[in-house]
């Protein structure tokens, strides 16, 4: 059970991310991602959208799998820059590291 936190998208702006809610969950990023790892990066983006901080912190390791190849940024139909969001989430995780 996750409680929605609508403030989280604003919180992420501090980490350089302002397109969290641009994503419409099509899954193109997960399909093109060379990692072929579960639903990466789509699932992380979704957690960011609904403000599921705990889920992001629990699964922080996934964020460091990203190869920065940029394919998801190139193919995203909403130009939501999924790769950049992953980078921003890393900054968020580091910032929350000791508190987590």
């Amino acid at each position, binding site marked *: *059970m996750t*409680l*929605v936190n*609508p403030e989280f998208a604003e919180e992420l702006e501090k980490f350089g991310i302002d397109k969290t*809610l641009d*994503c419409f969950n099509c899954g193109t990023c997960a399909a093109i991602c060379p990692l072929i790892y579960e639903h990466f990066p789509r699932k992380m983006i979704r957690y960011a*959208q609904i403000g599921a901080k705990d889920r992001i912190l629990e699964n922080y390791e996934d964020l460091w799998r990203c190869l920065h190849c940029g394919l998801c940024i190139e193919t995203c139909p909403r130009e939501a820059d999924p790769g950049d969001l992953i980078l921003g989430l890393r900054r968020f995780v580091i910032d929350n590291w000791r508190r987590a």
Partner: protein
Amino acid sequence: MEDEDKAKETTSGQKVGVYVCHCGGNISDHVDVGKVCENIKNVPGVVSVRNNMFMCSDPGQEMIMEDLKNGTIDRVVVASCAPSLHETTFRNAISRAGGNPYIYEHANIREQVSWVHHGDNATEKASRLVAAAAAKAKGLQPLEAFRVDARKHATVIGGGIAGLRAAKDLADRGIEVVLIEKSPFLGGWTAKWDHVFPTGDNASDLIMELAPQVLNDPTITVYNCARVTSFEGFVGNFKLGFKTQSPEKGEYEDEIKKMIESGKKPGEFIPFVGVSPSSGIPDASEEHTVQTGAIILATGFRPYTPRTGEFGYGKFQEVITLPELIRIIAENRENEPDDTLKVNGRDIKSIAMIHCVGSRQIPGIHEEDEDKPLNQYCSRTCCSAVLHAANMIRETHPKTHIYDFYRDIRTYGRGQEELYEDASKNKVVFFRFEAQDSPVVAKNSGPGDHPLLVTVKDTLTFGEEIQAPADLVVLAVGMEPNNVSDLVEMMKISEGVDKFLLEVHPKLRPVEVAVSGILLAGTCQAPFDIGEACAAASGAAVKTSALLGRGYVELDPFVAEVDLNKCKGTGACVEACLNKGALTLVEMEINGETVKRAQVNPATCSGCGACTAVCPERAINVKGWTLKQYEDMVDMIVADRIAA
């Protein structure tokens, strides 16, 4: 002399030409067309049997025209697809060859044979059907479509946006119009909106552009508080009775109160009510009759009313419908600008909007009423309306968060996908649910001071359960047709299983119903947005102008005909007649004696044949479909010589 020859030729009916179509294999893959042709050659009267890959093609039609022109044949049978597809095609070919289009008979050997039977059985059935058609064709007489005068007058029922549009368009074509509106006000549901998607136009501006044009047009007479009471007649000559009376106690109470409070005069727009015509609200009831050439139904829709408890509606005061929210948004605009939307002085920090309420209902999942079918259709307009409202709120009240719960987003029209994109830019958070896992609205006993908690199994989060605390829950209710069962009954028109009125052809004749002279405009037919409703209304107006513009209408000649040599005036036919007034007993002089005999009014006769079935003297027949012809057909169907 020439005319006499021709008459002799066309009444003889001894030279039947039969043309069998392969339909590019659709027929000939299962029916042995060559064998059918062989079998048909033995049918009495058949002088020519030919076949073609596509009879409907130009070369196919040429075959018929050639045989007619050189006098080889004088009756035509085409065996092909369903007559609804190409009967008219072949009648026209006969006309072009100088023949009477009614010397034609159609045999359906595709839908009734090759698509449902195979092998020898298919060939045998095809042979029998074609033989029967040939036998019937022998008895065909040339007929003339007859003309009746048509009044250049139309009646529009319903004074919403579609009714107003249709009335004005008709008046612009010089057709006199009576507009009948049930409520005291013009404008319908459009008058109850605020800014409308996708353009953001003010709904009141739309009404105020159209309503004064209607009210000021001398060719349009508007009756409000009016209900249709009777209907008779036929295209070009309908007679419609209606009654105007002051609203009953409780009816339109809020609207009338708002009108008085607003101090607005007739012709002026009253927000969320509409426009009162100059006649105001009638004090006494009055009966009216109008002679009219055509009727346009613009009876509109009503928003779905959620059941008590459906998403908490009726149980929690914080659960409202989208039309209610739209009113709140408009009323808030009059207040000081505020970062947070306020409802009854309460700060609304989060709104949960739920799509598809009362639309796309699924048997077994959604609760069913005994007296009402489930609304299985998509109401089409709600997705865009919800997103438009969400954007307005986010843009004016940035501290009010919005959660959008959808099954599918269907923002299908021009400028509507942009609403969905804008909603994302405006940071609306979307959740997606399956019909069987609809969001549950409950009292919030958890965190924050939000009164409600919406729980959903969110497919966007891979089926995880998500909870959203909400200060307001908005239900995007769908559209239901207004209940017009009285008109449906009176006018003998069809409604679909969804209770929306049914057009005669969904693609090629989308604004006409099966009864000639009655047309559809707007949301009585299907969920439409304002632009689509006006497009349908203008379409109906054009069709009406075309129908009435010539001053006469042509009617099918397939009507009953009395053989005065046989009629004994028993009156059995008059009793059996289903169309009041189509058959009467009249006095006439025969052999110096005054007797009563049956007489047909061809304008009202629908050609149903109920009279033919009951006449003890076999004195009445439907033209083109006589008893004798039926007997000939049956003889052929059972004849030994046709067997394959």
